[in-house]
């Protein structure tokens, strides 16, 4: 005979397995700090490349003027200014990455915990039905 509770549980779990299970499994296989560090590192590389592109576009926009003025300008001051902007930019995006990663890790952990709780419940139901 069909066990209604068991079918409900199995359906819910199957839906989860089809959906976010794989993604969440890849997240929770790390410790929280490791996962967030990895994401921050990836973000640092990607955002640095993006900053490089933006800086390149800025230089190319007035390239002729820049090349003319490069010998008269305070080069250290210019580099210092660029570095300050870079640090602010990287810090801002790193904070965003940290918040998003933390949120994602917590959601993945909760979903995975719920999945295993359901799995245990399912095993218990199977055990009960076999005893009967």
């Amino acid at each position, binding site marked *: 005979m069909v066990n209604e509770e068991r079918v409900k549980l199995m359906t819910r779990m199957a839906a989860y397995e089809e959906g976010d299970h794989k993604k969440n499994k890849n997240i929770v296989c790390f410790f929280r700090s490791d996962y967030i560090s990895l994401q921050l590192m990836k973000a640092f590389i990607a955002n640095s*490349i993006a900053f490089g592109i933006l800086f390149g576009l800025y230089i190319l926009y007035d*390239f002729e003027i820049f090349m003319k003025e490069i010998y008269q300008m305070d080069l250290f001051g210019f580099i210092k200014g660029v570095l300050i902007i870079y640090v602010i930019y990287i810090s801002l995006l790193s904070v965003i990455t940290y918040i998003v990663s933390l949120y994602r890790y917590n959601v993945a952990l909760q979903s995975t915990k719920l999945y295993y709780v359901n799995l245990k419940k399912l095993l218990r139901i199977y055990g009960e039905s076999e005893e009967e």
Partner: protein
Amino acid sequence: MTGLLELRENLKRFYTKNEIYLNPLIKFLAALLSLIIINQAMGYMGMLKSFAIVMVLSLMCSFLPGNFIVVISALYIVLHSYALALECAVVVMAVMLIMFLIYFRFSPKDTMVVLLTPLFFILKIPFVMPVALGLVAGPASIISLSCGTVIYYIIKFMTDNLGIFSSADAETGSQKFRVMMDGVLDNKTMLITVIIFAFTLIAVYMIRRTSVDHSWTMAIFTGISVSVVLLLICEFLFELQLSVVGTVIGGVFSLLLCLVIQFFEFNVDYTRTELVQFEDDEYYYYVKAVPKNMVTAQEKKVKRINRKPRNGAVKPSRKQAVPRASVAGGQNPGVRQERPLEKRVNPKVIKTANGVARTTENRE
């Protein structure tokens, strides 16, 4: 309406049944359509317009993940821009790379929005995107929508200034680059469109989340009318060089498309709305339950009349049906043996002297 609902159910069932074949087909068609539209809108590199290349790439996209369509389309746009002018290609590629590196690393699912937005712009029905995203997604989609809008306006800027970019004068290289950058950064129309679309998306999202009756329909009508009216107001204020008639017609078509989306995504029967109220230890609950419009799709049943007999044996009719005979004893298994039926006689109802009815059943 019932016919439409039945059609919807049939479509859903058909999709579920043939998902494994339909998904690659949909991807193939999406890739083919997007590449053809890009070729039509830009088409500066003759080689990319080759039907064979388009077909091969579309076939590749059909078996690869959905985001591959976006990558191929982005590559197509960059290569067409390169054929026009190197400066254009540099700017387009830089903008795309920045988008992918900063935002789409977080939400790879949203990349399709970046592809669809310029396509709907080219098809003159751009209002579909903010309204549809407000209905089925959330406020976070504003970023993807804005990125798509920026890409469209970059393409439009290039096509509008073909004369500047197609000149072969080598000295104008840095000027071309500056013109292109100005076209991206100082594009008033683009900026206003991005703001209006963001506003529309939020308005649609907030209205459809409310529990009032017909919230989705209200959200669609509000979204389309707000975006069309705001764009027209901005047209008069800032001279955005938009076609008034084109904008209105685009709005009407977008409205129809959004109603189709609503039909498939959110089809409920407000006449059967139930308002229930209950409580537990901590809360009072006021629940509004709106049933979905559901129609059970009719299944086609094939009724066989005069079924072809096997081994020449005549199949008895239902009334003359007999229990299957034993095939033991070396009898031919293909031929059914008839067993004599017990003859039944209808029971008789006898009234006794004291008025109690009694039945008898005689067997011969």
